[in-house]
């Protein structure tokens, strides 16, 4: 014996040199460095997962070691609830398309994808309580009563809005930009929001689920949540107990529902019993009151129920036993219960105990199983029964249900029945959502599209428009999703005038705003000009051309279809009233534009600098000065008395100092007489005139109160505020109230950005989609009729 041991020991101490148990990495000098395998694995386990993944890039053999499945299994097991991860990755990620095969499952990649997932905010609206939290958290971080949210008489959308805002406020996150997400390497926006909803729980006359969902969607989108996704509660609760098929029994606050769910689809035969957790609470309360024990209904009943109540396996036998027990519900107050301990739970099986003549839970489940047995071809899925909901945690409930079902059902159906209590109780749906929230977003859009084709309830979830907006956002980083949303909802079916040839690469032609001005004998009419450009483009083989007026596009760019657009162009300023994307006839034009401002500034500079023998800056330099130093004074007279000196360096000429020219330049827009043109109106007068005319002719009385400033000069600081002030002075109160002056975010490029939206949405121009952002041959006829190619 000892000889044998000795031999083994000798083998251990000497023999390993022959067997290849070390990783061999050859160095540049040909020297072989041997790194002991066991030590290496030990070291990797001590490192952070990110470091391990980084080390995979050191050399090829290290990658083999660092991506070892057992190592990552060890890491994943340390991180989270491993069983849930495994279920989510194998069953939900490719559900129901692909069966997972052991060979392709790399735990390293699973970890990586999970690390990248930004997570989601989950809102689980139950009948009694609302559960809210991050999908990366262990449990919901907020829990409050659903009832009493907002004034029931106020409109649904307002209440939903209030509700969503409250959630964001209480979770202390900004809806559109969350710190967790900023930390992710590819800059994803916050994850989708899973909103579970209560089916049929609003009674007659209440808004339908569809209406509620729409209200929630629009409220969230207005709050700039990037995407919303809804999954029904019962499916999620089933997922939480790591199953995709089975019979889910949800013992809710007001009622108990039995859902047959096959492959994640809820089948139609849902059985519902109007007995729920609240009935148990009130029964207990009534019993205690009979014994002159007055305890507030809400919180203490739940405590008592949790700590003392159970379900008897045999009700009659239990009645004969001594079951007295007591519990201290608050310091100094002990509460003793006798047969109420199990009578309370008995309500679920025999509602007549509480005076309700309804069927018991076991009958409902048996009924559901029998129905499924008749209609289903597959014969074992309905034998798994999962209990969820707060009351499902009552001890003995699963065993009792099991026993009752075996009594009720014929042997061929009762054989193999399993009753499971969901590990998460009332939070089951929340935990299921957590699983989905941590994986769904990682799916490739193509995978998601294929999923929609296979399965009914997943189609609902998967074909959700907002989910796809999220994909759009992730795959086209240059797209601003607010613009996409505006374009999708307002522009897709907009009456666009299109001329389409069999298409390859369409062009959007932005027609010049000048068309209202080219009326002189020598200038071509706008129509002629457009026709000429069209024929030229078509002869060049351009497949399709679409012409839209610049002012409309500029308005689109600030995400509006109606409003008054003020375009401060190069030579003149125009005020366009635009209603539903159509320019109305009453366009007001002033012959003051950006060039007047620039020339005024350069003349003033010239006059000053000649005295001091300094070289005046070139014309481009003057534009720089205008961009960097000029502004519009809110009160011109008061500004003149102030010291407003400031300087700016133009390379290579040097520093230039401006005093009151800084605001006098912008003042030209309002008082053309400064520049020596006495007879012209100011910008505010033109806009006021336009508004007054529209007020007379239009039935609709709000659209003309939004004024959008576009054009290069519109970026002058203070311009919007000044115009707002002047308009309030000029207009009568009923017209001036509610007026809003907005500066277009894109300045001189407003029309281009508007065209970009149209180009991306128009179905005939789909090919443009991938091209926008890359150098797309894009023609813009500017105010000077210069052809620019972007």
């Amino acid at each position, binding site marked *: 014996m*000892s000889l044998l*041991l*000795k031999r083994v*020991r000798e083998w251990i*101490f*000497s023999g*390993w*040199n022959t067997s290849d148990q070390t990783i061999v*990495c*050859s*160095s*540049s000098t040909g*020297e072989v*460095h041997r*790194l*002991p395998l*066991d*030590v290496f694995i*030990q*070291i*990797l386990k*001590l*490192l*952070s*997962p*990110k*470091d*391990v*993944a*980084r*080390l*995979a*890039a*050191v*050399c*090829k053999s*290290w*990658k083999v070691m660092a991506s070892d499945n057992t190592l990552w299994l060890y890491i994943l097991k340390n991180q989270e609830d491993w069983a849930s991860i495994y279920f989510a990755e194998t069953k939900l990620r490719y559900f129901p398309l692909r069966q997972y095969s052991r060979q392709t499952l790399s735990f390293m990649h699973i970890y*990586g994808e999970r*690390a*990248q997932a930004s997570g989601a905010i989950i809102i689980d609206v139950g009948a009694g309580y609302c559960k809210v939290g991050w999908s990366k958290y262990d449990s919901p971080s907020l829990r409050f009563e659903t009832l009493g949210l907002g004034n029931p008489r106020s409109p649904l959308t307002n209440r939903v809005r209030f509700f969503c805002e409250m959630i964001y406020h209480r979770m202390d996150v900004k809806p559109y930009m969350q710190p967790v997400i900023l930390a992710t*390497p*590819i800059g994803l926006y916050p994850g989708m929001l899973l909103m579970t909803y209560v089916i049929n729980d609003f009674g007659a006359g209440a808004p339908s689920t569809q209406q509620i969902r729409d209200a929630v969607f629009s409220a969230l989108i207005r709050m700039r949540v990037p995407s919303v996704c809804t999954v029904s509660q019962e499916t999620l609760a089933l997922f939480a107990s790591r199953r995709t098929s089975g019979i889910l029994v949800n013992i809710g606050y007001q009622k108990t529902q039995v859902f047959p769910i096959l492959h994640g689809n809820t089948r139609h035969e849902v059985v519902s019993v109007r007995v729920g957790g609240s009935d148990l609470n009130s029964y207990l309360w009534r019993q205690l009151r009979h014994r002159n024990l007055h305890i507030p209904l809400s919180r203490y009943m739940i405590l008592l129920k949790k700590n003392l109540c159970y379900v008897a396996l045999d009700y009659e036998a239990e009645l004969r036993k001594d079951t007295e027990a007591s519990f201290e519900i608050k310091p100094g107050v002990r509460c003793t219960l006798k047969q109420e301990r199990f009578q309370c739970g008995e309500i679920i099986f025999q509602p007549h105990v509480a005076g309700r003549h309804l069927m018991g839970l076991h009958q409902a489940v048996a009924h559901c199983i029998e129905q499924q047995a008749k209609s289903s071809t597959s014969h074992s899925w309905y034998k798994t029964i999962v209990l969820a909901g707060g009351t499902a945690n009552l001890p003995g409930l699963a065993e009792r249900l099991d026993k009752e079902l075996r009594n009720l059902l014929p042997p061929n159906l009762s054989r193999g029945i399993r009753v499971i209590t969901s590990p998460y109780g009332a939070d089951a749906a929340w935990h299921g959502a957590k699983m989905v929230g941590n994986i769904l977003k990682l799916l490739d859009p193509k995978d998601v599209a294929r999923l929609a084709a296979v399965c009914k309830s997943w189609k609902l979830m998967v074909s959700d428009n907002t989910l796809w907006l999220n994909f759009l956002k992730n795959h086209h980083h240059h797209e601003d999703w607010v613009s996409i949303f505006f374009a999708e909802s307002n522009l897709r079916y907009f009456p666009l005038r299109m001329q389409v040839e069999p298409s390859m690469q369409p062009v959007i032609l932005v027609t010049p705003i000048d068309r209202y001005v080219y009326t002189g004998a020598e200038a071509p009419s706008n129509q002629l000009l457009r026709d000429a450009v069209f024929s030229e483009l078509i002869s060049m083989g351009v497949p399709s051309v679409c012409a839209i007026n610049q002012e409309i596009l500029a308005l689109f760019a600030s995400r509006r279809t109606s409003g008054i657009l003020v375009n401060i162009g190069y030579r003149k300023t125009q005020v366009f009233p635009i209603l539903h994307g159509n320019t109305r006839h009453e366009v007001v034009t002033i012959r003051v534009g950006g060039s007047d401002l620039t020339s005024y500034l350069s003349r003033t500079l010239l006059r000053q600098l000649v005295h001091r023998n300094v070289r005046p800056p070139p014309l481009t330099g003057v534009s720089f000065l205008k961009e960097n130093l000029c502004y519009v004074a809110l009160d011109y007279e008061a500004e003149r008395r102030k010291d407003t000196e400031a300087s700016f360096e133009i390379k290579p000429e040097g520093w230039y100092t401006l005093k009151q020219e800084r605001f006098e330049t912008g003042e030209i827009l309002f008082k053309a007489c400064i520049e020596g043109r006495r007879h012209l109106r100011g910008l505010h007068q033109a806009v006021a005139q336009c508004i007054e005319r529209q007020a007379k002719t239009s039935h609709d009385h709000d659209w003309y109160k939004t004024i959008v400033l576009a054009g290069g000069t519109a970026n002058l600081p203070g311009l919007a505020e000044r115009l707002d002030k002047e308009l309030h002075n000029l207009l009568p109160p009923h017209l001036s109230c509610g007026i809003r002056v907005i500066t277009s975010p894109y300045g001189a490029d407003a029309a281009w950005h508007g065209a970009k939206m149209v180009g991306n949405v128009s179905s005939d121009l789909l090919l443009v989609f991938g091209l926008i952002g890359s150098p797309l041959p894009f023609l813009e006829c500017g105010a000077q009729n210069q052809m620019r190619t972007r």
Partner: protein
Amino acid sequence: MSKKTLTLMSKDKQLFNIEEHLAVQSVTIRNMVKEDGASSVIPLPRVDSETLALVIEYLNRQQAPEEDEDYVKKFVDERGEIPTLLELAQAALDLDIKKLMDAACMKVADLIKDFTLEEVREALRIENDRTPEEEKAIRDEFQWAF
């Protein structure tokens, strides 16, 4: 009571003496002593003499149990060279001295953690066997880690 002494032999045939009650901190040696008394020299063909000297130094420490943790930490901290630490970890693994093994691995992990890839390759004398394209591909694959 006379203290029994054991003799350990390193890879390059050097002999080291150590008292038995200290040597049995190594589970491997303890098993051998239990089994046949180990009167003869114990050969350690995978441990070189410098490393074995370190191990002997560690085993000979005279520390109160509550200061032991700090001592082990200090012991590996003083040997900050990665190759030395790896040898030490390997020896500790062979001799089954868990504390020393854990401390040495922890130290290496701490050192590697802040290294760039080039520094890791340099410290462990590893050649990068990937082309720049392959390097870029693997960086893309594990983008989340960089």
